[in-house]
């Protein structure tokens, strides 16, 4: 049996008294593409942010590639990881945000190069060549010197994908990567993601693009109110939802 890339068991997350995740249990296998669906406020973003420890979970167990997120286990005790150790683990997980979050004071090329140079200590020459190749791969070979403000939303998001890939992650998290885009720009970004999935990348994707879910996902998970309501293949969950809440949600977005 292969070790899962992500394993969540009864993950709880509270913000103050508001319980946002109420016991999430799921596994993502290496090379699997999982699409997370759910109404606004159901906790999808929060769950993604827990996976790379941008948020701390309150209870349950969450591990990536066999190692606990944010803690080290020795005997029956948990030890908090140092900040540098947390950073090192985050470097292995790529994340793409709804609003791109490119660094506006850097060109597209610098955006992609900076983390490999600063974090992985890759020599500048090599980081540069790799960044060029990545930007070419996402279809932006002529935008190397452009600042984010000079790019369209779709182009910015593809730079953001290249920036995450430059760290050679073993897992990619996408939080509504196309929600802030004009409809005609969505296709290019989904194309880049589809290509990535085809190359065997493990991906967790929060999206409302049902076409993408049906075509690319191996598993679709429907979340509501901080809980997993339904899990299965895209055909199963999208075509024959068992649960009332899933049906209600799908009837609204389809």
């Amino acid at each position, binding site marked *: 049996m292969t070790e899962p890339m992500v394993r969540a068991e009864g993950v709880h997350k509270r913000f103050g008294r508001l319980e946002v995740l109420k016991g999430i249990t799921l596994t993502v296998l290496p090379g699997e593409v999982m699409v997370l669906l759910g109404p606004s406020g159901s906790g999808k973003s929060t769950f993604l942010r827990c996976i790379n420890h941008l948020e701390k979970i309150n209870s349950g167990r969450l591990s990536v590639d066999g190692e606990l997120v944010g803690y080290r286990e020795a005997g029956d005790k948990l030890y908090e990881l140092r900040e540098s150790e947390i950073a090192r683990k*985050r470097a292995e997980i790529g*994340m793409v945000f709804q609003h791109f979050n490119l*660094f506006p004071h850097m060109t597209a090329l610098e955006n992609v190069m900076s*983390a490999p140079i*600063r974090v992985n200590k890759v020599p500048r020459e090599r980081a540069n060549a790799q960044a060029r190749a990545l930007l070419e791969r996402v279809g932006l070979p002529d935008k190397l010197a452009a600042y984010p403000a000079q790019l369209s939303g779709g182009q910015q998001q593809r730079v*953001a994908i290249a920036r*995450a890939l430059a760290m050679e992650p073993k897992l990619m998290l996408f939080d509504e990567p196309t929600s802030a885009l004009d409809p005609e720009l969505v296709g290019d970004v989904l194309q880049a993601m589809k290509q990535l999935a085809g190359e065997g990348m493990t991906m967790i994707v929060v999206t409302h693009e049902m076409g993408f879910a049906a075509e690319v996902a191996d598993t679709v998970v429907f979340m509501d109110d901080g809980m997993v309501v339904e899990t299965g293949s895209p055909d199963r969950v999208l075509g024959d939802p068992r649960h009332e809440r899933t049906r209600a949600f799908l009837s609204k977005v389809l």
Partner: protein
Amino acid sequence: MSGPGRIETPPTAGRPDDIRAVPVRHRGRWVAVALILLFGASLIHSVATNKLLEWHVVGHFLFDPRIIDGVVLTLELTVTAMAIGVILGVALAVMRLSPNPLVSGPSWLYIWFFRATPVLVQLLFWYNIAAIYPRISLGIPFVGVEFVHGSANTVITTYVAALLGLGLNEGAYMAEIVRAGIISVGEGQTDAAQSLGMSRLQIMRRIVLPQAMRVIIPPTGNETISMLKTSSLASVITLTELLLATENIYSVNFKPIQLLIVASIWYAAMTSVLYVGQYYLERHYGRGSAREMPATPFQRIRRGLFSLRREATR
């Protein structure tokens, strides 16, 4: 650029659908210009022809070695005090934003204290520090280890007293400016940098501060210009900077107005240099924030002259 008097024609000129309209004439503008010129000319006339002003005295002392020494000291004091202010300000701002109250608390207290007392009082305080701490040492407290020590009067010279008074006070103001800059950078930037595995220091240095600069630099330029002039307060504690240098001269020759004009000319000249510096710094840190770089002043003046010429040739 085209030669003098030529009218720049857009490349599409001459096409049948080009609009040819009589431009609006701005008569009111010309009247205003005439009035302003008239007022300016009469002011200059009165200043230039007033015999009591004795411009030759101003000219005589403008490059006097004592004045130049004062200018140099004023510059030195401004630069070093601002350097202390900026470094302290960044440190205090980062501390103040810490979630740990043991870190943010002292920073808050510092900022409160130095903003709550006049800088002139602080200068006098440092100048007189020897009265309560005659002996000063640097070492590990309570265990009696001392690396350097000396009498307060030799360690705290007037220059050091002025530097401490101005620099420590400036730190409190700079802290608020830097904090505003840091807060202005969206949380998404930190999220993205963290998810790439950057450390907290790297995020501050490479991602947050460079973007905060856009917000930090204009008020910092303002602070520097202000410091240039506030440094004249150091004359009160007998530091011979530009103002005291001029005072020393006019207390002998009894020509205060002329020497104060000399001082003003130098202050204004130094301020103007700072203006230019600030402009180019802003341009540098503004990169990426707009689709096009703003024009340099030279480009703008050239463009302005050009459009004037165009209007004149109509």
